């Protein structure tokens, strides 16, 4: 059992290493991405001020709104950077090559397309936000860092579990998986997560968004910024952990079942 743990961790580490090597090949792209992020942040802050000025009784100051949206962006971008192009690898037959390795296929796909470059940029951004909070705000910094990291890790695993569960249908060439994934996740969220405070949306919309993941993230982030209601946070995180484990189990099961129908074309 411990042997397996060692084996799997070594695999994860070397895949991160290789991913780093790959991104270092395109230094220009890396710098351009950092530049894009900076511009993105400036624009978001600008929009936050516009909103606050135009709407009375908004409820948050510009600084609070900025921290809120940026934290959400960091967590959500990291989530998306770990979602592999499973659809493509099924179509072009790359999945076949992964199936003949002695490592769980979902675990493999996850680490094979781990977006290290994007995640590093988001981590840099996170450090910047921490500095920003220390200077401009009086939020409990230790709690903020701890919770953001924990929420990021849990919600990433959770989002991926749902993602792989839905993607298992692609193995049997059923459109349903792709359909449900798109209407719950793609596009809608990234379009407004940076512009509008998510908490303005009614609760059921948050629940629908990326299933429950965004709901938990938004609520915990808000709690940290407004008032550190520890009990609330712990309850929410606990619920998310339980759901994550359940979805991970079902994702694995779904893949075992659907692989029987896999036709493996494309090499």
């Amino acid at each position, binding site marked *: 059992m411990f042997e397996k743990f060692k084996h799997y961790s070594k695999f994860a580490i070397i895949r991160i290493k290789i991913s780093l090597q790959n991104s270092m090949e*395109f230094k*220009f*792209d*890396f*710098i*351009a*991405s950092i*530049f*894009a992020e900076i*511009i*993105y942040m400036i*624009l978001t802050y600008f*929009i936050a001020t*516009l*909103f606050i000025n*135009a*709407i*009375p*009784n*908004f*409820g948050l100051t510009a600084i609070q709104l900025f921290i809120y949206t940026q934290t959400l962006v960091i967590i959500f971008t990291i989530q998306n950077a770990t979602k592999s192009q499973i659809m493509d690898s099924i179509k072009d037959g790359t999945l076949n090559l992964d199936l003949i390795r002695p490592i769980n296929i979902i675990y493999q796909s996850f680490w094979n397309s781990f977006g290290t470059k994007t995640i590093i940029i988001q981590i840099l951004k996170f450090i910047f936000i921490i500095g920003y909070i220390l200077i401009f705000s009086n939020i409990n910094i230790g709690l903020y860092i701890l919770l953001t990291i924990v929420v990021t890790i849990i919600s990433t695993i959770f989002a991926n579990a749902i993602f792989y569960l839905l993607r298992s249908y692609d193995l049997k060439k059923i*459109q349903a998986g*792709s*359909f449900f994934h*798109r*209407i719950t996740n*793609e*596009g*809608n969220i990234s*379009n*407004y997560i*940076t*512009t*509008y405070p998510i908490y*303005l*949306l*009614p609760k059921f*919309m948050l629940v629908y968004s990326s299933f429950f993941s965004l709901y938990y993230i938004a609520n915990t982030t808000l709690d940290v910024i407004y008032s550190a209601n520890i009990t609330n946070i712990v309850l929410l995180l606990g619920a998310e952990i339980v759901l994550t484990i359940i979805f991970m189990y079902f994702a694995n099961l779904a893949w075992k079942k659907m692989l029987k129908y896999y036709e493996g074309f494309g090499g």
Partner: protein
Amino acid sequence: MVLTDIIVDIIYLFMMVLVWTKLFSLGSGQIGGFVLNDYIMYYIISMLIVMFYPAIENYFSSDVNNGNLVIYLIRNLNPMIRYYFFSMGSDIFEIISMSIIFIISSIYFGYFIISKILLFLVFLIIAILLTSLFRALVSLIAVKTQRIGGVMGTIFLTMSFLSGSWIPLNLFPDIVQKIFYFLPFQYMRYFPAITYLGKTNTSQLVFGFLISILWIITFYFLFKFLYKKAIKSFEGQGG
């Protein structure tokens, strides 16, 4: 699946309506000179306009990397026109459904005025030309840098922001709005939308029309010039 695209669009619209309703409930009956119906209509128009914009740069850059461009050069057909119709074909259902929503909400909210529609069509065509040329221009960078990635991302980010896709430009301070009149970006999305909403007076319309035509001409000649230069430096890489 096309059905998915339509559903995604409707959900996005629904979210926008909810958010702006909530924002309006916090304050007075108007924000930045617009009422709630204006904002809803703005997003519907915005989404409709975007559907006419083809993703040229993706085709162009992948062709450069694959060496396919050589085929087009041999056939002496301007690749850009080709790309436009390639990408349009798959969107036809989306365009139809969005147009239906557009027409129904216009009638419901009371924006359906013939003169405004004609004005809107004029500026819609201008918007399409402007965006296509601008994107084509930026795509030429692909000839120099092999990967489009981060650079394009930055450029399109700024462009989409300045064209009013995140929030309508009326929320910006007056001075900034005046500067926007001279830049080409607002004519790609914001300006056609507000002509339809009836938020422009005659002098603004005339001024906007002239400036946007000027930009189209500038982009066109710039594109032709850079295209010739790019073809010379393009020695058939890839393949």
